[in-house]
């Protein structure tokens, strides 16, 4: 809370001082009221003086008016300061979150960030308002009443000094014991929610296995548990009101008895006894409020702590590049590449895949590679093993890189380094010859377009979603992107076309449609590098193939116009998606275990052969071998091993059919996360 206060309270200094001050004045008048009534009785009634009664009555009225005047000023100050501070915190927090790189986002997780920027800020806001409005009022009223009572008569005031701490202690006792219980009740309630959700999401499995009775029993137990804890906490809370009521009224009894003695000897008046009784009531009321405030502030300080945690986290990726990077002169550097592409396209239309290798054979010289990874390693924060281990590769403009491997092999991590979503732990990532850390972030991310694994859109229209990278794209450009992304039909089928509404997350589109729209989104604004991070997985094979073809055509067309053809990175688990790539990078446990064209890898890389075989792709020689082994995973190939030469002579080809545990891919995932 202190840190938040230091940072955000300054602007509202006036409100924060004037507000409580006004509240204090109001309280002073409240404390004086019983004294005025006492005077009314003692001077008015005892002396049968009607004018004194009216005089003091008038005074009460004036007190009330002054009180509300000050109270209104205080409330205004409180609402201004608290809402203002809340607004400032939200803006600062949102800005800060936007500075975060993936590493920080991973650390907090987005749901947690959402809670912090909404609920937690609201909690702090509420606490500020209550601090101004009530934190002053109730403690001062309690203390003021006690002081006033002591001023009237010290001996009688002692009853206050005894009973008030007792009441406060009862409150402390009950609340300190019940608040943790409340959490427990909430936790049990959450469990009931969890079981209900499980019962709904798993309804098919539960019914298929006829385990309904078991689920009923689990739920019943959870409900019993919840009721038991709730009853226990209720038992505790039920003590609070009766005990404080009892203590207070016994104190009143004592005041009356003791007061009688004092009045009898003339050291106290009847009106003053009444004032004492009234002060007692006021004190109790104040303690009740103070106790409630404690709860609010406990919650708010937890919220403030969570907000601070975000502020204290400095983004690991800082936009250090301040000079715009010149892209290579497209016209001459790429002319050769364009020619290659055309040749490749022509060859492909003719039906030959092998011709594509020609594209690679003519290695374009004289220009910087579009993407160059120099011995790049990357370890996720807190992970023991690196997610990427000494990856080294280079890709020329206009080429296509295919990245293939099992889940958790580091494919996505690799491509996330290109637009600097993470920074490499070791080594360097270069884009068109310039280290990505020297690129201005905005320009870098404009040049590199990413189609993420999960296809999601934001609420708005098709147009507003497509214009994410480039706000002023024309309709023509949008349609072109849609055509390439195989999404034009989807949009054409919509009545409002480009202006058709998109619901949050793009829920009103199917997975495949969403996927194609996100591809189109990445294509708008002419990126130089396109990264498809396993984004074709929701597409059927036909559409996937058509997409890749359209991308090649687009690139060729752009090169033919003298522009920079775009470089594509395709991450996939499917061999069919990457087989035509200029360069295929086979990943396993964060290492590159094979690098080359399909034709090369199919001959030389055991892992690649296995992947091919498992997908029914033709692998010369390998299939028979696999069949012979009863279809089981053959290889005890060590990671990082690129098997040279003929597959038949590869080590491990003759090893036992049962794959050793370590070669089962899911294991990698566990170690990745560890």
């Amino acid at each position: 809370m202190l840190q938040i206060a230091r940072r955000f309270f300054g602007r509202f200094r006036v409100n924060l001082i004037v507000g409580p001050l006004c509240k204090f004045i109001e309280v002073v008048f409240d404390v004086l009221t019983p004294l005025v009534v006492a005077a009314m009785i003692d001077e008015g009634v005892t002396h049968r003086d009607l004018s004194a009664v009216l005089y003091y009555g008038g005074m009460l009225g004036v007190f009330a008016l002054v009180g509300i005047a000050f109270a209104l000023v205080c409330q205004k100050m409180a609402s201004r300061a608290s809402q203002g501070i809340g607004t400032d915190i939200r803006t600062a927090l949102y800005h800060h979150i936007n500075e975060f790189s993936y590493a920080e986002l991973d650390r907090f997780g987005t749901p947690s960030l959402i809670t912090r920027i909404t609920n937690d800020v609201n909690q702090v806001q509420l606490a500020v308002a209550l601090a101004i409005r009530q934190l002053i009022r109730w403690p001062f009223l309690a203390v003021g009443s006690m002081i006033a009572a002591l001023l009237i008569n010290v001996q009688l005031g002692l009853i206050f000094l005894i009973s008030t701490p007792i009441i406060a202690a009862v409150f402390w006792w009950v609340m300190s014991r019940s608040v943790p219980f409340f959490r427990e009740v909430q936790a049990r309630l959450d469990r009931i929610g969890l079981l209900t959700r499980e019962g709904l999401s798993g309804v098919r499995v539960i019914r298929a296995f006829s385990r309904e009775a078991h689920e009923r029993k689990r739920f019943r137990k959870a409900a019993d548990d919840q009721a038991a804890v709730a009853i226990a906490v209720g038992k505790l809370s039920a003590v609070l009101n009766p005990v404080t009521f009892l203590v207070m009224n016994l104190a009143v009894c004592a005041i009356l008895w003791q007061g009688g003695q004092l009045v009898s000897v003339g050291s106290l008046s009847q009106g003053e006894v009444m004032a004492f009784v009234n002060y007692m009531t006021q004190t109790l009321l104040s303690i009740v409020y103070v106790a409630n405030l404690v709860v609010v502030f406990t919650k708010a300080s937890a919220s403030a702590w969570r907000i601070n945690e975000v502020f204290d986290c400095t983004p690991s990726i800082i936009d250090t590049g301040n000079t715009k990077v010149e892209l290579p002169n497209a016209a001459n550097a790429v002319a050769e590449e364009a020619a290659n592409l055309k040749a490749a396209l022509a060859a492909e239309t003719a039906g030959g895949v092998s011709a594509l290798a020609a594209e690679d054979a003519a290695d374009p010289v004289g220009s910087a590679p579009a993407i160059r990874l120099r011995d790049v390693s990357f370890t996720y924060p807190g992970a023991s093993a690196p997610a990427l281990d000494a990856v080294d590769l280079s890709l020329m403009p206009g080429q296509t890189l295919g990245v293939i491997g099992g889940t958790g092999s580091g494919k996505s991590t690799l491509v996330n380094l290109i637009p600097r979503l993470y920074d490499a732990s070791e080594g360097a990532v270069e884009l068109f010859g310039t280290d990505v850390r020297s690129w201005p972030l905005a320009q870098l991310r404009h040049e590199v377009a990413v189609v993420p694994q999960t296809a999601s859109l934001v609420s708005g229209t098709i147009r507003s979603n497509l214009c994410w990278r480039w706000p002023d794209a024309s309709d023509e450009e949008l349609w072109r992107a849609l055509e390439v992304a195989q999404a034009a039909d989807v949009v054409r089928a919509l009545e409002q076309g480009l202006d058709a509404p998109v619901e949050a997350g793009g829920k009103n589109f199917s997975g495949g449609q969403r996927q194609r729209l996100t591809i189109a989104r990445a294509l708008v604004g002419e990126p130089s590098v396109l990264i498809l991070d396993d984004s074709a997985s929701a597409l059927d094979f036909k559409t996937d193939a058509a997409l890749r073809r359209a991308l090649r055509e687009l690139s060729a067309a752009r090169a033919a116009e003298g522009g920079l053809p775009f470089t594509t990175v395709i991450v996939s688990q499917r061999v069919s998606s990457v087989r035509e790539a200029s360069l295929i990078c086979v990943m396993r446990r964060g290492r590159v275990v094979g690098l080359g064209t399909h034709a090369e890898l199919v001959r030389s890389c055991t892992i690649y052969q296995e992947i091919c075989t498992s997908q029914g792709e033709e692998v010369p020689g390998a299939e028979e071998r696999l069949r012979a082994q009863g279809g089981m995973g053959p290889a005890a190939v060590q990671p990082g091993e690129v098997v040279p030469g003929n597959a038949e002579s590869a080590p491990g080809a003759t090893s036992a059919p049962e794959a050793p545990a370590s070669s089962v891919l899911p294991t990698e995932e566990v170690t990745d996360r560890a």
Partner: protein
Amino acid sequence: MPNPYASTGSVATVTSSIAGGSSSGPNAPGGPGSLAGGPVLSPATVVRRLARYVRPHAGLFVVSFVTAAVSVILQLYVPIQVGQAIDCIIGTGNVDFARLGAIAVQLAVVVTIAAVTQWVQGYCINRLSFRAIRDLRVDASEKIGRMPLSFIDAHPHGDLISRVVNDVEQIGDGLLQGFTNLFTGVVTIVGTLVFMLSVSVPMAIVVVLVTPLSILAAWLIAKLSNRSFATQQRIQGNLGAHVEEYVGQQKLVDAFAFGPRAEERFEGLNSELYVAGERAQFLSSLSNPGTRFINNIIYAVVGVLGCVCVITGWPAPLTVGGVQTFLSYANQYTKPFNEVTSVITQIQIAFASARRIFALLDATEEAPDAPDAVELVDPRGDVAIEHVDFSYVPERPLLRDICVHARPGMRFALVGPTGCGKTTLINLLLRFYDVNAGRIALDGVDIRQLTRRSLRAAFGMVLQDTWLFEGTVAENIAYGRPDATREEIVAAAERAHADSFIRALPAGYDTVIGEDGGTFSQGQRQLLCIARVMLTDPAILLLDEATSSIDTRTELQVQAAFDQLMAGRTSFVVAHRLSTIREADCILMMRDGRIIERGTHDELIAAGGAYAELYRAQFA
């Protein structure tokens, strides 16, 4: 500092009384479907049906109401006794100690009894309400368990969960506790009135006439602030939606360098929120000082009038103690009114919740097994699907005239575009849904004539949507056979190629899987579900995209285990990957709810139809 991550949500109920504007309204009424459509239950019906849940605790119910009445009346008697005591203390040398002593003792006894009864009341109502809502909750949950799948598929799960969790909680707070508060509130109002009249009729009339001013003030302020609250809520909702959407996809925002534009939008909403929030908060914060002001004025008026009565004896004689009594009453009298109004809102919310719960409890359940349903014993796995038509909604037929005859041990592969009805067929086989026309027979018996339990026991099923529950890995694997030994579980995991990663877990097979499957990858979750089926010994196997999230190398290994499992068993496999289904005895190519081609892989390739086209597309 307490653990800042701990949930403190429930404390809100304690603090809401002073939070003023913490407006967490009731949940928006239910989603679409049959739950919203039914007739609105009358309040009397709602109360009658709730009474059913209170009846088992009738003793607690009676005790809590009797003690509530006793406690309230005794508490109200206190100001009168204090007044009488003060009348004993007139001045120097003029104190009636005998009477004062008696009154003090009496007062001590009264407050003790009041405190004890208040405690008993709190204890009883607490016990009663939590037990009653537990029963209600169990009923609601079990009701969901008896609903047909069409219902569960058609209703947003969040809505159903909210009914079981939040609505039931609302009923506990509102209807059970609320009713007691309403009762004590009314007793307080009536009791105060009676006591005041017993002391002084004219003064009582004055108090009764002026107190509504305070209530009026509170009402006016509430009315004023409600509108601005609604505006604030709306903008807060927009802001929340923005955050939910953009922070929820912060990685995407990062990758597209969209941050500045998102911030612009956010700041626009945020400054709107400031204006609305400041206004709403100010207006609502007027309520306390406003009513306090009116109360202070009333206090002054009662004081002055009381003193006038004491001095002049007009319009009615009064003692100084009487003035004190009235000052107390005047101070307290508005409180029960405020409480009653807030309780009434709470009760209204609770009524809405109760209606939602009863709508759920009244929904039509899945038809029970036919009375003459037979137990399927030792199924052979002969599945005959005969002229089956099916649709989820009548306007859109999903399956049309499906005929398949699977003899024991045959392997069928279902192929076709998304939404062509492959998964639906599986729903029908397990009787999650019933066919609209035609019939499905297992070993020659219509499946509607079989008990669901024995029918479903004949099947082993792995779905694309993996389901793990909160429990250990071993419990999850043994879900279909709770009596399995650890050795059997491990063997099943080994066959599913899940053993190695399970062993790598911190507690191996005893690792507790958290909410939503915890940290397992989709592929690992699928392997666990496969192990679950490996452990059972079904006659028929249904695999619906069972290996879609497993990388192809592991899939190949799992497939080998499946081959073993499927040997001699009838199986139906839905898959996108043609390689996984090439081995099938019969491939069923589906489109638009019909089987358009059937045959082995080689036959269909030779025929050059839709399947061949699809197959070629893979290698295009």
